[in-house]
């Protein structure tokens, strides 16, 4: 029964993406811009939630994975650009999709690399390692001339549209939601709730932690690829620590471990950023105040309890 609902949601989400794509010509550029950013933020937040929310590993390196995906896919499409300029549209889109996938795969390889130290670290220590790793990715790019260095890469073909963005966002939500609700995926939650007990019960906690990093990084890489092919210009500065913090805020605001919650928070924060533009210089103050109020009123996050009340495990 539950599986039915998940499949239905997947189909509905994909249909909504197609519908959005179809009405896109009627929207102005700014509206499309916000929709795409919201979609990219959904992918980032939902994928980070798998690591931070469901598996309980505090990662601060999401922007690094995003950068890995963005640069990998951009280098591929930039290399192919002369050939694709005259190719039929479907070929260009197919190449774009392959580039996105390559970016995602490379990011998940990076996720594997950072997942391995998480065998020995937890809590604050892991947070520092992921933070460092995200910075390493950025600094390596900054000092690599072939990747544009600090000057960034410009002229990336703008292939990203609403169909790709929301199609991938839907798949990300579907994969993460059905993964943690599956028999296998209960292992993620057990690692979060009590690592020692999980280990005693025969759960391979190492495997689960690495899996969470690999899957989370894969989607972050896709999000990075979408971002690069939307803005057309990327620079290492755009993938700094603050970008990771933005995503962490979405996860905490939405409710750690609640997929619908973090997706809603991603949309809410994207819209809030735009709606508050009229406050001009005071925008960030208003933004921060709203966050503080929200956290006081709902410390468990927007939809935090919605999913958690099912578990009655007492906190030690």
């Amino acid at each position, binding site marked *: 029964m539950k599986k039915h609902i998940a499949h239905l949601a997947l189909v509905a989400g994909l249909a909504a993406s197609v519908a959005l794509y179809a009405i896109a010509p009627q929207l102005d*550029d700014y509206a499309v811009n916000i929709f795409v950013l919201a979609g990219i933020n959904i992918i980032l937040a939902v994928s980070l939630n798998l690591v931070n929310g469901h598996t309980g590993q505090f990662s601060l390196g999401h922007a690094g994975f995003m950068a890995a995906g963005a640069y990998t896919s951009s280098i591929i499409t930039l290399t192919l650009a002369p050939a694709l300029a005259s190719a039929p549209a479907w070929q260009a889109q197919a190449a774009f999709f392959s580039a996105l996938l390559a970016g995602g795969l490379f990011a998940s390889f990076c996720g594997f690399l950072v997942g391995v130290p998480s065998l020995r670290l937890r809590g604050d220590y892991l947070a520092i390692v992921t933070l460092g790793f995200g910075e390493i990715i950025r600094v390596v790019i900054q000092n690599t001339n072939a990747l544009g260095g600090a000057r960034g890469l410009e002229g990336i073909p703008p292939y990203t549209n609403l169909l790709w963005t929301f199609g991938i966002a839907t798949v990300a939500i579907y994969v993460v939601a059905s993964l943690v609700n599956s028999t296998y995926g209960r292992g993620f939650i057990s690692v979060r709730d009590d690592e020692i007990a999980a280990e005693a019960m025969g759960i391979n906690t190492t495997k689960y932690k690495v899996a969470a990093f690999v899957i989370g990084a894969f989607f972050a890489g896709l999000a990075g690829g979408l971002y690069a092919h939307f803005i057309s210009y990327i620079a290492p500065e755009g993938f700094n620590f603050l970008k990771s913090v933005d995503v962490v805020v979405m996860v905490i605001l939405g409710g750690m471990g609640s997929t619908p919650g973090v997706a809603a928070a991603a949309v809410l924060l994207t819209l809030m950023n735009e709606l508050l533009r009229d406050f001009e210089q005071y925008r960030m103050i208003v933004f921060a105040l709203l966050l503080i109020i929200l956290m006081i009123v709902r410390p468990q996050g927007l939809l935090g309890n919605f999913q958690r009340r099912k578990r009655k495990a007492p906190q030690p």
Partner: protein
Amino acid sequence: MLCGLFFSGCKKKDAAGNPDEIVIGEFASLTGATASFGQSAHKGVRMAVDEANANGGVLGKKLRLVTEDDQSKAGEAATVVRRMISREKPVAIIGEVASSRSLEAAPICQQNKIPMISPASTNPKVTETGDYIFRVCFIDPFQGAVLAKFMLQRGWKNAAILTDVKQDYAVGLTDFFKDYFTKNGGTIVSEQSYSSGDKDFKAQLTSIRSTNPEAILVAGYYNEAGLIASQARELDIKVPLLGGDGWDSPSLVEVAGDAMEGNFFSNHFSAEDKSPAVQSFLAKYKAKYIESPDAMSALAYDAAMLLFDAMKRAGTTESTALRDAIASTSGFPAVTGNITLDANRNASKSAVILQIQNGKFRFVETVAP
């Protein structure tokens, strides 16, 4: 539904379609890391618009300035420029100081066929985006060459370089400096790097000191340049430090104090220049804002004035005609020197070298292209 909510929530101003006004867009980093530049640029543009309106507007219409803040953040420039173009329908856009954010906005302006004039983005790639993108400042190759030329003229043949590798502007400046300097008989004795936000430069400076340079190029922005200068003096490095227009901020001397004395930097204009254009700009700026203008406000003012001049020459605000009028600008008497736009839509004009003396930026000489 979401969509409807969103649109009704956002339509605050009665935009577009008022036939008696011309909308000019501007995006700037009013907040965030480079807020100092953004604020200065905004004041320059604001002043130009007010001045034009006080003189009866342009083409018989009032000008309305729409300003958006990009928070000095990646991704924001693209968003605010799309917002401006969709909501306010500006005839032209002025922005940005930082090359990285101009590069985000340029493809959007090009695609929408809206002329964009950058006041101070010195990266050559900005105007390479397309034929609607212009700039009123000189570019990194020129500034790098000016500094190299100046050093060689003074007989400093051994230079060390300290570059902020995090800023594309600084990396570009270093590349072109090295190119000119080594080709004209100079030697680079040491090359070190740092990242914006660093506080300690002693390791790099110690290594530079051991190579005995006659001058040190510090390619970066004012925040770190100030710290570098004071730490260099602490390490007893007495040779002059040189920088580009990224040094131009009152904070430069505030941070370093006496350690900045005697150092040089290249800039777009000097307040000490006796030309009437500069002096009348200074007087007007001081009257309006009760402070002295920096190069960013002068450049932004020039960008706006050049745009209004092009509108008058075109006799219309239609985008192709306006683009052609801007492109054909020749010998426009601007505050930062006479501007002629070349075939690559870059301004060809002279640079000034300033020296820090008693905490003030003193005019030393003008270096022609």
